[in-house]
């Protein structure tokens, strides 16, 4: 006969300020199988947990209900707590009387009434709970890293340093990501390529790291410990093994196409590497523009390749990798300023984005590091930088702050001044957000040492007049409008998730927010984990982030994975389905329904020797969604911790 104890938490005044916790505890004693109840100021604290342990021992309790915050916050805490006094962790339940009650209802009587009801539901459920044993699942000690930018590279190197294999999947022909496009980095003004390139080489030569470049994730199945990843390696038309990276093919290729890497500021060839330091340094043929692949004529690259690496017959290829954990490090895209009709909506050639400016000032960029106007090739003498284009704009863009723009704009004013000594830079800003080591000092330097004029106010309109871009803004501190004839205007466009972020998340089962940034499991206590076990986050796919933050997060995610890989078996919650074979009629419905292909049919012989098929659940594949249960004709499938009995018990007490 179950003996349940109820523990009502005050949570300081968070609960007790609204809910009469003593009444809740008193009423709880009337509920079925409840033999003990008490209250405490902070149930999750060490002394609070002692209260629970003591009560379990003294009253011989075998079930507990903690009425406190949401189970998502402290469910595990109380499970661990009763485990220390010999109870199965699965014999506890929580009633969320804080998030679902005291914080959302105003009337104390109503809140108290509801708290009592929530406790009633939890006690009803807990008496049907059973002691479960954790599942031990084997761990494949290899990690998948999606994205080969600085975050992905860092994660892979850290994992490799711990002695485990890391598989990088990068959609572009080369690793490097956004950082490869930058010129110098704030606040130290290190050359981006100079600090990135060694890492790229390191990752390319590390025998524990496998790089699948020019590849995409097709599908991921399985769960923590044993994921199976289908990767589509796009046809490169150049053999990675044979190519020597001599570059003759690129030189001779007659087709010019806008360069994606240079953000359409220059052209590339139909066979090319995105940038000179590419890793792998093997070109790809763009099948949409290659004359041979579109028209069947040309073939120059094949003729000039002495290594015989060009292969027009190359096909996309699907490869399978088995891994135990995944890091999503997919990075960011930039908000498209076309939505800003008042800034020209892309019509003015001398209005460019911050990233385009990075390419312009880059010595290996389209102009060899000369800052010139796209319209007439002249050197600009007045450059206006506009911040928050898309960011903090609920009407046209995104409500959030993109975090890095204040800093890179300050950097760009410094670099502009270094390139063009008599240039005057103006920065239109709303607030300067320079929280970070040496960041504020850096912005100050831009203003004092490099003479960037900061103007507080959003720009209302840009228009062309006599070969210049007229910038119509407001100095809100002065309370006066300003009009600046600029030679070049640079828009700090918002950081947005990669275009493919949502599709990828749906393939993996990652949770994401309304902007398609990936969700961390907990904003403070689990910032690099995703809610899906075994998947971790690194870099700007989670939120706008600068390089140091991305690298730190990448190392943190790698450390989490190394922890996971430190054991042969992983102990996880046994929240899986099971089939009562005696009742199963072998109808196959569950097999068809299961999203994880965790159910299959097996042949069993009954006592008379007759054969029949029954369903069985592969517990390492089952994720515990319970979708199979309602469709089972003979009601013979059960789901641990969410049994029909348990849910029914809750529903029966409403």
């Amino acid at each position, binding site marked *: 006969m179950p003996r349940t104890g109820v523990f009502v938490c005050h949570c300081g005044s968070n609960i007790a300020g609204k809910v009469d916790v003593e009444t809740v505890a008193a009423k709880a004693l009337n509920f079925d199988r409840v033999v003990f109840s008490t209250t405490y100021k902070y149930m999750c604290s060490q002394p609070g947990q002692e209260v629970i342990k003591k009560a379990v021992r003294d009253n011989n309790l075998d079930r507990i209900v903690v009425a406190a915050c949401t189970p998502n916050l402290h469910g595990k805490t109380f499970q661990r707590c009763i485990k220390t006094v010999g109870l199965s962790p699965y014999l506890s339940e929580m009633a969320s009387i804080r998030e679902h009650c005291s914080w959302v209802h105003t009337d104390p009587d109503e809140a108290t009434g509801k708290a009592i009801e929530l406790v009633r539901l939890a006690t009803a459920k807990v008496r049907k709970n059973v002691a479960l044993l954790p599942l031990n699942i084997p761990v494949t000690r290899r990690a998948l890293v999606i994205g080969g930018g600085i975050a992905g590279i860092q994660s892979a190197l850290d994992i490799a340093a711990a002695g485990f294999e890391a598989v990088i999947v990068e959609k572009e022909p080369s690793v490097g990501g956004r950082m490869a496009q930058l010129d110098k980095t704030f606040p130290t003004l290190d050359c981006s390529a100079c600090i990135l390139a060694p890492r790229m080489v390191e990752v390319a030569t590390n025998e524990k790291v496998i790089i699948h470049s020019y590849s995409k994730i097709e599908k991921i199945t399985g769960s923590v410990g044993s994921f199976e990843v289908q990767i589509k390696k796009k046809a490169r038309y150049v053999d990675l093994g044979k190519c020597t990276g001599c570059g003759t093919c690129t030189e001779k290729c007659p087709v010019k196409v806008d360069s994606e890497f240079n953000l359409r500021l220059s052209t590339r060839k139909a066979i090319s590497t995105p940038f000179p330091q590419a890793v792998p340094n093997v070109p790809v043929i763009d099948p949409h523009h290659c004359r041979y692949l579109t028209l069947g004529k040309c073939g120059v690259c094949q003729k000039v390749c002495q290594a015989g690496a060009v292969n027009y017959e190359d096909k996309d290829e699907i490869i399978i990798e088995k891994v135990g954990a995944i890091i999503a490090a997919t990075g960011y895209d930039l908000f498209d300023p076309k939505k800003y009709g008042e800034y020209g909506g892309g019509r003015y050639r001398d209005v460019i984005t911050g990233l385009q400016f990075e390419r312009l000032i880059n010595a290996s960029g389209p102009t060899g590091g000369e800052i010139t106007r796209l319209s007439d090739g002249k050197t600009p003498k007045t450059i206006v930088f506009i911040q928050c284009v898309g960011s903090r*704009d609920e009407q*046209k863009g995104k409500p959030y702050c993109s975090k890095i723009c204040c800093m890179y704009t300050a950097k760009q004013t410094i670099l502009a001044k270094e390139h063009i000594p008599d240039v005057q830079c103006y920065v239109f800003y*709303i607030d300067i957000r320079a929280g970070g080591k040496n960041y504020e000092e850096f912005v100050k330097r831009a203003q004092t040492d490099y003479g960037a004029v900061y103007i507080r106010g*959003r720009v209302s*309109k840009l228009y062309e007049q006599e070969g210049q871009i007229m910038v*119509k803004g*407001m100095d*809100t501190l002065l309370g006066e*409008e300003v009009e600046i004839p600029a030679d070049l205007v640079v828009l700090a466009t918002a950081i947005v998730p990669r275009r493919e972020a949502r599709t990828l998340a749906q393939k993996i089962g990652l949770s994401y927010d309304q902007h398609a940034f990936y969700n961390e499991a907990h904003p403070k206590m689990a910032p690099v984990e995703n809610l899906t076990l075994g998947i971790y986050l690194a870099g700007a796919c989670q939120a706008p982030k600068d390089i140091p933050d991305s690298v730190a997060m990448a190392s943190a995610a790698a450390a989490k994975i190394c922890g996971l890989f430190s054991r042969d078996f992983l102990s996880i919650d046994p929240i899986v389905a099971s089939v009562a074979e005696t009742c199963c009629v072998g109808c196959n419905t569950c097999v068809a329904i299961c999203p994880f292909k965790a159910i299959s049919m097996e042949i069993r012989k009954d006592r008379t020797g007759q054969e029949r098929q029954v369903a069985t659940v592969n517990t390492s594949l089952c994720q515990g969604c319970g979708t199979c249960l309602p469709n089972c004709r003979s009601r013979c499938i059960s789901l641990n911790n969410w049994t029909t009995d348990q849910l029914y018990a809750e529903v029966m007490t409403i």
Partner: protein
Amino acid sequence: MSKQFSSENIARLNAEILVKCGVDLKECYQCGKCSAGCSSNWMMDYRPHVIMRLAQLGQRAAILASQAIWVCTGCEICSARCPRGIDVAAVVDSFRQLAVAEDVRYGEHDIPLFHQYFLKETRDHGRVRELPLVANFKIHSEHPLSDFALGPTLLAKGKIKLVDDAKGSGVNDLQELFKLKV
């Protein structure tokens, strides 16, 4: 002189504007884009974002007595470009309406006067007749003789008629809605 803030004034004006035009003044984060785009900013004592700031802080009297609310042409570029989607033009309209309703001493004389004679034409004749409107308005305005010279040109070009047969009887149904003081 320093501004006096009081929580009651702030709450009251915020509520008043919310009811009048559905704008939550607290949404404004003072980026100044409204002022930057404003056609008439160069003539205003308070730029639009300052009007919004004064409003946020409950400075009702200062706004009602300002000249800015009257030189606003109602072009709505402020509303169209506001990153927070605030209908700034509607806020300005609300303040003008309050100023008229409460008969405060306007920070600008001629423009509200013009509106009153414009509506008087509408009330009394259904349609606006240019000559009586100009005549009435100019006589009472602060610059009665300005543009007097334009008169003959306009008459010659047929832009103004001496006798106007304007009528539009539909307005009769609305007489009682006009609360004009002219």
